[in-house]
């Protein structure tokens, strides 16, 4: 009848796992089950059940990846299911999260490991989204959005990304001229950015596996959703080289795009580095408009000149040192210049920001990240897998439960002859 040895019916198992994965902790899950479903289940059985189901899901995922790896080279990047339609626009975005991993008692202590922060480890997260958008003859939104010209807000956003800023940068609420007011009002009236692609269906992957193992996982997941048959394809990253390695190895036919906000953070810090604030403001507003248009050839020479003026950063200089800020910005923007053709991407109806994956990481963090939360490696992999499954809009968990019960009830059923 589809009953296993857990002591819980399939419906109760579904509720336990849902609560265990979507509540902030197993303790809270136990309380939620009591309050919302009149089920008395202690935190430990909730944890055990989540671990068990998470393990089953990771086993399924690994089996699917292995099976995909065995496909002929051409088939790996082909349409997985020709009977299903291919998306108009497919987007893959990869980023990293953080969580604390409990060290195993048998693990030898390494003197080389840094003393502080030893439990924090990285997780990998990928978001696969389909979009609907038009291809435009001309840039549908040639002016940089007003929000990126609000310097106070932009500074907070850049700081939020963990980016170093020049010391002493302070912005008050900007006084706007009536003309600026009108322009801002006009922009606020817009429901959304013109030409912005409309998001359709999201699926999520999360794992503790390294990039070498994570790349094939994302590849298989994109393949299974017919992403390789999409009309337009984009791969978004924050500029970390490892993400571009995944793109080159597994998503060669996808257009690599650097997240606009990460590009902005480097432009912002370089514009204000070692200059009077008023001068920096003018420069930033000019540069960010140029970056929005993807005309990197205009500002890279300016940055080179500026870096030469300030000189190379000496070793051990502060992160906020103007020499360092300009040098790092020049390096980052030069390395990623070919992935910053934003005007072209907008015309192609492609997304240009990694907000999707960053938002998903926040939702995953809500469950897994906390100074008081420590995971074992198997526990972390299970919860990451399930959190990703529940954040996916592809009904992954509904299908899993149906298949699991069907498999368990596939034995012969006897009925008395009446």
């Amino acid at each position, binding site marked *: 009848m*589809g009953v296993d*040895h857990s002591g819980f*019916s399939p419906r109760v198992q579904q509720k336990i796992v849902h609560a265990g994965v979507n509540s902030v902790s197993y303790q809270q899950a136990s309380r939620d089950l009591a309050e919302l479903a009149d089920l008395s289940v202690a935190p430990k059985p909730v944890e055990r059940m989540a671990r068990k189901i998470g393990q089953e899901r990771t086993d399924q995922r690994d089996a699917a990846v292995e099976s995909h790896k065995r496909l002929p080279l051409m088939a790996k990047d082909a349409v997985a299911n020709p009977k299903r339609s291919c998306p108009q626009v497919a987007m893959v975005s990869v980023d990293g999260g953080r969580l604390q991993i409990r060290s195993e008692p048998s693990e030898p202590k390494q003197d080389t490991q840094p003393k502080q922060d030893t439990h924090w480890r990285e997780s990998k997260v990928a978001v696969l989204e389909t979009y609907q958008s038009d291809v435009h003859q001309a840039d549908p939104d040639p002016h940089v959005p007003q929000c990126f010209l609000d310097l106070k807000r932009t500074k907070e956003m850049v700081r939020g990304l963990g980016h170093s800023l020049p010391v002493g940068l302070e912005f008050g609420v900007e006084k706007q001229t009536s003309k600026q007011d009108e322009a801002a009002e006009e922009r606020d009236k817009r429901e959304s950015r013109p030409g912005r692609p409309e998001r359709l269906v999201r699926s999520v992957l999360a794992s503790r596996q390294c990039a070498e193992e994570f790349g094939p996982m994302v590849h298989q997941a994109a393949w299974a959703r017919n992403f390789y048959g999409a009309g337009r394809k984009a791969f978004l990253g924050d500029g970390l080289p490892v993400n571009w390695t995944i793109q080159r190895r597994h998503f060669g036919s996808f257009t690599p795009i650097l997240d606009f906000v990460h590009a902005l953070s480097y432009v912002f810090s370089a514009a204000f580095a070692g200059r009077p604030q008023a001068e920096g403001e003018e420069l930033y507003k000019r540069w960010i408009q140029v970056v929005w248009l993807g005309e990197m050839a205009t500002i890279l020479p300016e940055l080179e000149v500026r870096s030469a003026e300030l000189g190379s950063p000496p070793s051990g200089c502060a992160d906020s040192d103007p020499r360092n800020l300009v040098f790092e910005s020049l390096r980052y923007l030069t390395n990623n210049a070919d992935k910053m053709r934003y005007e072209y991407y907008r015309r192609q109806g492609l997304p240009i920001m990694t907000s999707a994956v960053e938002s998903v990481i926040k939702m995953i963090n809500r469950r897994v990240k906390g100074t008081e939360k420590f995971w074992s490696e198997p526990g972390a992999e299970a919860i990451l897998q399930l959190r990703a499954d529940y954040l996916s809009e592809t009904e992954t968990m509904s299908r899993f439960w149906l298949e699991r019960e069907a*498999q368990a*009830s596939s034995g012969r059923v006897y009925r*008395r002859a009446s």
Partner: protein
Amino acid sequence: MGKDAAEIRREFHTRLNEIARELTRKLYPQGLPRGTKFSELEAVAGALGDEMARQLIEINVQEQADDWPEEELGECPACGGPARKAPDQPRVLLTTRGEVGWKQRVANCPRCRRAFFPSESSVGRRPFRL
């Protein structure tokens, strides 16, 4: 697979209505006492519904467990060897409507000295020590 739950609910609507009326007469022979809070009525109705559902599950699970032929012992899931009959084992399961219990046929592997439920297929199947 049987009928869809919504279809069954429609089919038994009249019969369930009769049962509900009968239970109401038994519960409140003088009618619902004045001042009864809605949440109290909801709790009583829920408890009766849950008990009905729980008994329905229990009866059907027990019937299906009893239907399993005694001679069909299957093979040991651990070693694949022949099994022999062992005494039926009580099982308890927490459902969304409360606990249900039934007795299930058990087979025993003399080689592994482990018992298992021959009526169960692979998922969650594991031999256990008696």
